[in-house]
């Protein structure tokens, strides 16, 4: 095993090489376009186009060079500066304890606990359980889901027979969302754990990966946070399968390229990452930003800022780009993907306020800028397309004059710029598509790995399919993101609803509601460009096609049968499907088998009131505390309401209030057992 001694500053040549390549490429492309424009002198419109093109080219040349360098690193199959090279020897210090922390908010409890059980089983299989405790940090507001979480927590404990400590708590108030949830954990139990590993509700991680992360942390005392890139898995819709495949094939070269220049100034992606609890607690207490949401208030995309704060305090943050065994799930449909994008967009645009804050390392500032740019790029591309159309229209209106002056026999032929324009187009296309070619080339050089992708032919055809779909989707996502950016700039805040993670298909009405505007815009743009700038229309077809077809495209991509068909014929296959690791096998088994928790037909709320063991379980999990007189009166009123008007008359908040109070629950429990028909009498009791 090769080891390196990292002194805290990256190799001097890496960043200059990378950023010089990026800048030179962008300059080259812009110079090409400028050479076309400047022959007649630059008009204001052309200057605007050049500026836009320069920004966009810098943006895509950034990911282009990350992919190229990542490809070189991957094909050499060695990187002296990969953090994963440095691991502590076994056995580890007994004090090196990790809290696996999963914050949840109104998620599907069955999926959450199946994921956790899979992780625990893999930890047991790797004999690593002694270093890990598990915390389910519930911010769930829905009383039904809350009680189900408690029941599943109890079931999981019974299944594992206490071999791994699994803890659960539901927060009374979900202030500051996920940030507040984790902060509450640190405040209460953080001191007991040297490390904390954050999982998302759909995260799954292999036991050996968790152990290796711990060993890396132990070996690097300056390392505060280690991020392992999560691979998307487990979804069956056509949309998700294509994205899973793209991420699996293209992801490794991009992350390797990313690590090439970011080194110890890495980023935090919010989950599937381990941090040194004390370092995090001392440096990452996030303040509220001045002003109102969406730009002020709580910091939404806290992860980038936390990474920057750790670096500001002198800690290292690394991306273990070459580690596997870290998984997450993708939104199953295009519409769900856009909804997630809406939240991320708001979080990233909020960083405009933080971009110039004092004390950030320049690389962290760059991370913030990249996050902002990943959403601003869409309206900029849109603006670029519109202005290009206007420019083409103005050019088409110019009359060609062949003879200047009087009585001349020699015409002045119009200059053609087709070679320059062709080069600009080729350069742009190469930068967009070469990374895909590099990724599949890399795969083709690894026969063993290739088999897991269904073989050379299927993998290549899958890349082609993915390319076609991504070309069609690009303008739709551009419109979605442009709309989000405008909405946020107009200070429209969003409702932080739970993600719909399970597989489902998009119906016609939903597709129309989401994409009718895109279709209309596509048809209008097609009509305008066809009649007014005919030449431009033909160039615009790839963009227009995605917009015009967005409704059927969205529906087809959400189709589960098509996704399963692809799976059956081994297209868009990923190694996690052809050769699933133990942890994913367990997850699949747990989700496919009959639910071992026999949930009663009655509501969970009723179960807490009636079923004595569930009542006791819930009471045992409530924090102690007393209510004010006023709150007690309020709860009395709710008890009367329940008895007189039934369960349906209570709002979610009111049910939560009753479920959060021990005395009220005890009284209701006994009262309910005194009723002739138990909860069947709710709403019929005359008090």
């Amino acid at each position, binding site marked *: 095993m090769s080891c390196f001694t990292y002194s805290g500053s990256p190799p001097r040549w890496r960043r200059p090489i990378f950023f010089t390549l990026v800048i030179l490429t962008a300059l080259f492309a812009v110079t090409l376009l400028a050479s076309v424009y400047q022959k007649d002198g630059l008009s204001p419109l052309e200057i605007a186009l050049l500026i836009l093109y320069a920004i966009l080219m810098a943006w895509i040349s950034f990911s282009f060079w990350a992919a190229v360098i990542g490809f070189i690193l991957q094909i050499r199959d060695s990187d002296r500066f990969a953090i994963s090279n440095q691991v502590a020897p076994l056995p580890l210090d007994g004090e090196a304890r990790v809290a696996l922390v999963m914050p949840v908010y109104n998620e599907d409890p069955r999926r959450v606990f199946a994921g956790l059980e899979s992780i625990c089983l893999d930890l047991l299989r790797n004999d690593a359980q002694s270093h890990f405790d598990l915390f389910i940090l519930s911010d769930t507001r829905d009383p039904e889901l809350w009680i189900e979480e408690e029941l599943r927590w109890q079931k999981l404990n019974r299944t594992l027979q206490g071999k791994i400590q699994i803890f659960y708590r539901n927060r009374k108030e979900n202030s500051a969302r996920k940030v507040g949830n984790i902060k509450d954990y640190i405040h209460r139990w953080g001191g007991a754990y040297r490390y904390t590993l954050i999982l998302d509700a759909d995260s799954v991680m292999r036991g050996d990966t968790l152990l290796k992360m711990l060993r890396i942390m132990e070996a690097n005392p300056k390392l505060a946070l280690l991020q392992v890139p999560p691979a998307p898995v487990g979804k069956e819709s056509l949309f998700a399968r294509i994205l899973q495949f793209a991420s699996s094939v293209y992801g490794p070269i991009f992350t390797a390229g990313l690590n090439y220049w970011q080194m110890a100034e890495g980023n935090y992606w919010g989950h599937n990452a381990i941090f040194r609890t004390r370092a995090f607690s001392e440096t990452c207490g996030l303040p509220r930003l001045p002003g109102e949401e969406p730009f002020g208030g709580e910091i939404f995309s806290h992860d980038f800022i936390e990474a920057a704060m750790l670096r500001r305090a002198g800690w290292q943050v690394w991306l273990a780009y070459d580690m596997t065994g870290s998984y997450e799930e993708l939104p199953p449909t295009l519409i769900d993907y856009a909804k997630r994008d809406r939240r991320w967009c708001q979080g990233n645009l909020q960083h405009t306020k*933080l971009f110039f804050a004092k004390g950030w390392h320049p690389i962290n500032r760059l991370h913030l800028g990249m996050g902002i740019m990943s959403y601003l790029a869409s309206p900029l591309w849109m603006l670029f397309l519109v202005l290009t159309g206007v420019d083409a229209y103005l050019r088409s209106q110019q009359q060609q004059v062949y003879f200047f002056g009087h009585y001349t026999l020699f015409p002045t032929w119009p200059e053609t710029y087709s070679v320059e324009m062709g080069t600009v187009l080729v350069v742009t296309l190469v930068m967009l598509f070469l990374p895909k070619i590099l990724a599949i080339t890399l795969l083709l050089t690894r026969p063993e790995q290739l088999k897991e992708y269904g073989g050379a032919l299927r993998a290549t055809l899958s890349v082609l399919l993915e390319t076609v779909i991504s070309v069609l989707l690009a303008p739709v996502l551009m419109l979605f993101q442009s709309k989000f950016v405008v909405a946020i700039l107009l200070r429209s805040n969003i409702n932080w609803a739970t993600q719909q993670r399970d597989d489902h298909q998009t119906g016609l009405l939903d597709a129309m509601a989401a994409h009718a505007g895109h279709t209309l815009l596509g048809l209008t743009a097609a009509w305008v460009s066809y009649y007014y700038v005919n030449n431009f229309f033909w160039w615009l077809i790839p963009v227009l096609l995605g917009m015009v077809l967005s409704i059927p495209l969205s529906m087809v991509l959400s189709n589960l049968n098509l996704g399963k068909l692809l799976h059956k014929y081994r297209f868009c296959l990923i190694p996690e499907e052809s050769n699933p690791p133990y942890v994913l096998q367990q997850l699949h088994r747990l989700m496919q088998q009959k639910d071992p928790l026999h949930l009663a037909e009655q509501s969970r709320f009723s179960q807490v009131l009636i079923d004595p063991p569930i009542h006791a379980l819930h009471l045992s999990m409530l924090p102690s505390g007393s209510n004010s007189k006023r709150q007690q009166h309020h709860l009395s009123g709710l008890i009367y309401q329940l008895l007189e008007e039934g369960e349906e008359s209570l709002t979610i908040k009111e049910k939560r209030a009753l479920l959060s109070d021990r005395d009220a629950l005890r009284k209701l429990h006994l009262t309910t057992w005194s009723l002739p028909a138990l909860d069947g009498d709710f709403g019929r009791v005359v008090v």
Partner: protein
Amino acid sequence: MDQTVVHTTAPTIAARMRVQDYLCACGLPQPIIDEWLPELEQESSDLATMLAAAQQRLNGWLSSTLEIADADQQGLLIAHAALPYWQGDGGHLSADARAAIAHCCFLATPQEHPLAMPIQKIILCTPGVQITNLFTNICHDCLPLGRRVLNWLRRV
């Protein structure tokens, strides 16, 4: 809340059956239920009182069987919650069950070990604030259509 008295005093037989159902739902072994019921009936014929007495008796039984201190309400609740799953043969809890609860493996949260997380200072610099304000003000305040577009976006 004391006035939440429901007028459902059942006849004795019905009350006895209800208490039997209750103890059964608690997961208490049947021989113990059979032993307790006549005693509970003797104490009261009122359903609510019988239920309260049954609960008390159950708690007492759990604390003596599992050696849980009377003051340890949390421990009692945990034992109560797990009772249906820990039934041994012959109406007694198995040794395993007792061992399991002794180790408190079903404790929802561990002992607290606090760690402070002080709020950090982030000094915002004017360029960021100015750029953000510029964008938002142009879009929101200055454009005549700003608010209309915003409303439309909210609707869509």
